[in-house]
């Protein structure tokens, strides 16, 4: 999903930067508030960022015969909500742009928009929706992470198709081309990311029950009862 340095025309690069900036600024505010009000969550925040670091460094072979990597943004979005993930994702993308020549500074805005904004929000949205339908926690976590991963690559395909419409078949033709490179390759990787996120969440349920309850991922008995009775009253 990394659009390489200089590979978006200046107007597009600037537009995506402008679109991403408010999300990141808002995210920094949420992050500082979270750390100030709940200093004990700093460790878990670090772990969520670390998960993104590991997963976005894992280049895995896929069914299309090319390699790509997961994003690791679903976990942090589910735990701390998407605004905070916007910051953690941006840090990861900056590291890769500056040290690995992977992605770039001119394309940072576009890459942040796909991986640190749309991915986390889409994954979080699916997670919340499934939770409302009483789907078991680990199933919601799987689909949250799966959607966060796959939607990121769909956005990258759209971004490239907007910048480089096919001379013959236009935007849609280009979208098909970039989509077949990114989105199709990503499907099995998104499954992998879903499974890895479930493993980490299972470990968290065992080790950090109190923290997960405070973050609303695990419901206390009274909260479950309240939700049930609320549902009945409605």
């Amino acid at each position, binding site marked *: 999903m990394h659009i390489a*340095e200089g590979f978006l025309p200046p107007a597009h690069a600037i537009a995506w930067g402008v679109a991403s900036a408010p999300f990141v600024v808002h995210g920094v505010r949420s992050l500082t508030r979270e750390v100030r009000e709940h200093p004990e969550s700093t460790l878990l925040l670090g*772990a969520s960022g670390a998960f993104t670091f*590991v997963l976005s460094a894992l280049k895995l072979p896929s069914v299309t*015969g090319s390699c790509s990597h997961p994003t690791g943004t679903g976990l942090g979005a589910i735990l701390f909500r998407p605004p905070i993930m916007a910051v953690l994702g941006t840090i990861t993308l900056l590291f890769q742009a500056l040290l690995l020549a992977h992605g770039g500074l001119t394309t940072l805005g576009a890459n942040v928009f796909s991986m640190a904004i749309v991915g986390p929000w889409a994954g979080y949205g699916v997670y919340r929706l499934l939770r409302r339908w009483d789907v078991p926690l680990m199933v919601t976590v799987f689909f949250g992470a799966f959607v966060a991963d796959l939607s990121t690559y769909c956005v*990258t395909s759209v971004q490239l198709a907007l910048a480089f419409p096919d001379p013959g078949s236009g935007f849609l033709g280009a979208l098909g081309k970039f989509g077949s*490179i990114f989105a199709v390759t990503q499907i099995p990787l998104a499954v992998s990311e879903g499974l890895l996120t479930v493993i980490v969440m299972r470990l968290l349920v065992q080790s*950090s029950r109190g923290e997960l309850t405070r973050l609303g991922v695990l419901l206390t008995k009274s909260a479950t009862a309240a939700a049930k009775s609320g549902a009945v009253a409605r």
Partner: protein
Amino acid sequence: MSRNARINALLLLAVAALAVLPLVLGLGDHKEEPFAGADAEAETAITEIEPDYEPWFSPLYEPPSGEVESALFALQAALGAGVLAYYFGLRRGRRQGEERALTASGDATAPGNTPEGD
């Protein structure tokens, strides 16, 4: 192995299978350059669509060789894995310490009092 550990091991096995199967089945054989990065393929697609396109900015720092690049990728993964391992190790140690403290205080005050986990 506990039931929990067995489920986690199975999940990991599934992830490994998803990564290894494309290699074993030779799904990259039809390509000139099997299992290249999707990011690089997108760059190629861009130059196919717009052959005149010239990247207007180049990375400030570029790893001088594939070896250095893979070292930096390994560093990124190692940093992340280290922090994750620290987190879970610390949690585990804390929980064990709490349980031990509970058992100790339970023994001292009320012998019949069974300690509750967290």
